[in-house]
């Protein structure tokens, strides 16, 4: 359905272009300009909704957007041409130049062409670099492909503007270079042109902001059924905690941190007893489930980022921050710290293994819980035994998967 819309848009845009080209130069057409702007924005919308995996709608939308931009530029060219023909002042500009530029500070002829050529080289070189460079984002492994799509839209809009401005500059530098007897125009302002440019810019900006805010809204709205787990950061290592069989993470406080209790869990909180603790080891995550990543730091700012996930958030000591994602591709990915946290910042690495639910369950079974950790210490062993005998449970109980 959306692909058909993309094709229809291309045809409409091309039709509008032919119509604009065929019109007599010197006439204004606000209607055509407005229609073209809307067509262009709809094209972007279609491209965004199609995403990279539906190429017809995607490229259809983008190409029609590009055609619409060209049409608007052509209409602007008509406005320019009209403006050039207008006369200024009561008399024609005089040929005589009373103040003569000094020959010893004047530029030689070659420099003028060199500048225009250099500008074109910068524009063309930048575009070529973009398409030829091997340095692009790493393949995504989460549901945040929307972010990539928004980046592509931004690239198109800003790329077109960048090329257009540099090309126009190259044209001006070449065409309006100083020659003997040449005189510049005198035009303090041109309200119509400035108005057009403001509107066009606002539309372009809105075209980027709208998809961006739409995806941001998704980013900050955690799904109801997201399973929670915690990443705890400290200088300079990662630790992880899963909620265990009861599906609830135990409460914690940095004040409780000790060698026996490295996560600072409240020993009295029953929810924390079965929390699965992972220290100095890889993180494993289940495939295709919405996950809410709770982030905690016990000393300074850190940031938990896996480039394939496209989502990150700082850890702030004293608060619990979060983001959410759905891992969509199995594999082993690297964790890096993305907020300067001292000398060891560059070495604060880890690995996350995304695997099938069943493999993830099996892995969880192999890890220690908080209760077992307490049991390992001398005092803890006695306390855990007391706890176990008074409540009739054994110290090594089942640890379930993530919540629900």
């Amino acid at each position, binding site marked *: 359905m959306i692909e058909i819309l993309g094709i229809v848009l291309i045809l409409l845009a091309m039709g509008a272009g032919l119509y604009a080209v065929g019109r007599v130069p010197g006439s204004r057409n606000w209607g055509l300009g407005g229609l073209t702007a809307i067509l262009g924005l709809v094209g972007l919308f279609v491209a965004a909704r199609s995403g990279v995996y539906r190429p017809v709608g995607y490229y259809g939308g983008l190409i029609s957007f590009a055609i619409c931009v060209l049409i608007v530029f052509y209409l602007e060219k008509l406005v320019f041409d009209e403006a050039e023909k207008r006369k*200024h002042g009561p008399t024609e*500009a005089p040929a*005589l130049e009373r103040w003569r*530029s000094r020959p010893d*500070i004047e*530029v030689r002829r070659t420099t003028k062409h060199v*500048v225009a050529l*250099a500008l074109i080289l910068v524009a063309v070189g*930048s575009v070529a*670099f973009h398409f030829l460079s*091997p340095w692009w*984002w*790493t393949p995504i492994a989460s549901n*945040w492909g929307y972010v990539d799509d*928004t*980046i592509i839209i931004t690239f198109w809009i800003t790329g077109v*503007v*960048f090329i257009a401005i540099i090309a*126009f*500059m190259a044209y*001006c*530098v070449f065409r*309006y270079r100083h020659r003997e007897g*040449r*005189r*510049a*125009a*005198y*035009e303090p*302002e*041109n309200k119509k042109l400035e108005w057009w440019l*403001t509107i066009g*810019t606002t539309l372009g*900006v809105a075209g980027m902001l709208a998809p961006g*805010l739409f995806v*941001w*809204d998704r*980013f*900050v709205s955690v799904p109801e059924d997201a399973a929670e787990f915690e990443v705890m950061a400290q*200088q*300079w290592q990662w630790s992880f905690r899963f909620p265990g069989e009861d599906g609830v993470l135990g409460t914690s406080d940095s004040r409780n941190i000790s*060698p026996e209790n490295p996560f600072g869990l409240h020993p009295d909180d029953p929810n924390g007893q079965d929390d699965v603790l992972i220290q100095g080891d890889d993180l494993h995550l289940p495939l295709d489930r919405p996950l809410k990543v709770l982030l905690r730091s*016990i*000393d300074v700012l850190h940031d938990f980022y896996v480039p394939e996930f*496209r989502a990150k958030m*700082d850890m*702030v*000591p004293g*608060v619990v921050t979060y983001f959410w994602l759905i891992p969509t591709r199995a594999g*082993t*990915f*690297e964790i890096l*710290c*993305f*907020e*300067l*946290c*001292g*000398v060891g910042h*560059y070495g604060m690495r880890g690995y996350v293994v995304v695997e099938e639910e069943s493999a993830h369950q099996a892995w969880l079974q192999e890890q220690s819980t908080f209760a077992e950790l307490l049991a390992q210490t001398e005092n803890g062993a006695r306390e855990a035994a007391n706890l176990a005998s008074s409540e009739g449970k054994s110290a090594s109980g089942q640890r379930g998967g993530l919540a629900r």
Partner: protein
Amino acid sequence: MAHAYETAYVPPAEVPDVELYHPKSFITKYIFSQDAKVIAIQYSFTAIAIGIVALVLSWLMRLQLGFPETFSFIGPEAYLQFVTMHGMIMVIYLLTALFLGGFGNYLIPLMVGARDMVFPYVNMLSYWVYLLAVLVLVASFFVPGGPTGAGWTLYPPQAILSGTPGADGGIILMLVSLALFIVGFTMGGLNYVVTVLQARTRGMTLMRMPLTVWGIFVATILALLAFPALFVGAVMMTLDRLLQTSFFMPVIVEFGERLAYGEGSPILFQHLFWFFGHPEVYIVALPAFGIVSDLISVHARRNIFGYRMMVWAIVVIGGLSFVVWAHHMYVSGMNPYFGFFFATTTLIIAVPTAIKVYNWVLTLWRGNIHLRVPMLFAIGFIVTFVNGGITGLFLGNAVVDVPLSDTMFVVAHFHMVMGVAPILVIFGAIYHWYPLITGRMLDDAMGKFHFWVTFLGAYAIYFPMHYLGFLGVPRRYYEMGETGFIPQSAATLNEFISVVAFIVGFAQIVFLFNLVWSAFKGRQAGRNPWGAASLEWQTPDIPPGHGNWGAKVPVVYRWAYDYSVPGAAQDFLPQNLPPDQVAADHDHGREDLPGAAAQPAE
């Protein structure tokens, strides 16, 4: 409806002489001088000197990034210290000081037709406080532990904890130096604002001022309002460090040891810092905007296109700059719903900025472009500023910032938009006003070499760097090491960037040599070699003497952009040229007209 740029006849009245200080000795003329022109040169020398230190630090950083595991004298601690000092020096001690203290002090009184700043003694003090701030900053290199390595953003808690270099003494000296700088800049800033508001000469309305003055004026207002946020943040962090208060310090267990802090908020510091930090980048950018408008109009012999819109845009950008700060904090852990507001305001601020870009380019259109060195730098500014501004649109869109924040994309963005573009304006401005300040021209061949290497080189450094950011290469990393997601070719790109950086650095040495050599051996410039209409070129003496204007201050009859005026025979009309001396063109420039002698001779 009368437009501001139309000439209105103002009868030349007697302007009472201002009671002016009169320096008598060498010390009061050149050292403890109250003359804004001398103060400007003092600011400029000091800023450029400390800027060279920061430039060398950047070479050390590029050595490490381009050739990791090669230079044993650059360890992870030293690297962070280089990063921090390079950033802080460049943003605050070079760019802010040079644009406001250097160009502001020299150009504002001359461009508005005043004899000097309105508070000359305080102006003098402002420089010496600035110099003290620089010396305190340099001292941090020599204390045990060295300078702070907390990043120029100085985020707590790490900035004052032992895991970060310089937590012993370096951070304290940094904060003290910043506080001193802010005090000095408040003194200077009051001068610039009040001089523009109160000391303009007769006929010089606000809407006849050159855009250089508008840019520096609005930037100074931003500085006066924004620096206090940094000041209080610095004071609070100093108290946290020295007295174990907990403004920014929550409960912390550092390396297994519970520290004596609690209940503070690290995010509070970020809000304070960026409430200053975002206007700060406009404090750097707005003077550049104003100056480049003047460079383009003079060297294209064409009035700046849309002057009123340009003034409006400067003011609106200045105002909006105060409501965008948290776009530096999208992933900071602040309330995520703030992201909607700040993304919207950030993208709105793109509109007046884009209008300025269009107007610069439209000034070139139908102009009479002389491709001299200042114009080359102005063109280079437009290209790099558009590039840097555009990547800002990526980062300002909250969700796009999520994968890109703290990557080399951010580093490339802010270098392009704040490091390359305004620096190109500084160079262009120096080539443009050097003949006024010294009476000599800078060497043209060295200037062109400097331009081409700097412009193309800086573009080749920072444009590809964005793609490292897309790859996911983080910033502030001592070394990347082996990763599964970064190809080996990225290391080659890093090497390339480093090599180009050294070449660009070499070109700056050529520029410095040019500055010194031309002061003694440069061609004599004569009066107003560029044919500029603004007031600073119309002084009786070149370079301008004490009191700027001689016996009588000028009277202004028109705006600063009367170039190629139809109906006038002169190629340009100086602001203080009386209307009865404008030669009408149908006379084909008669020598016998009374104004003929007042026109600049060949």
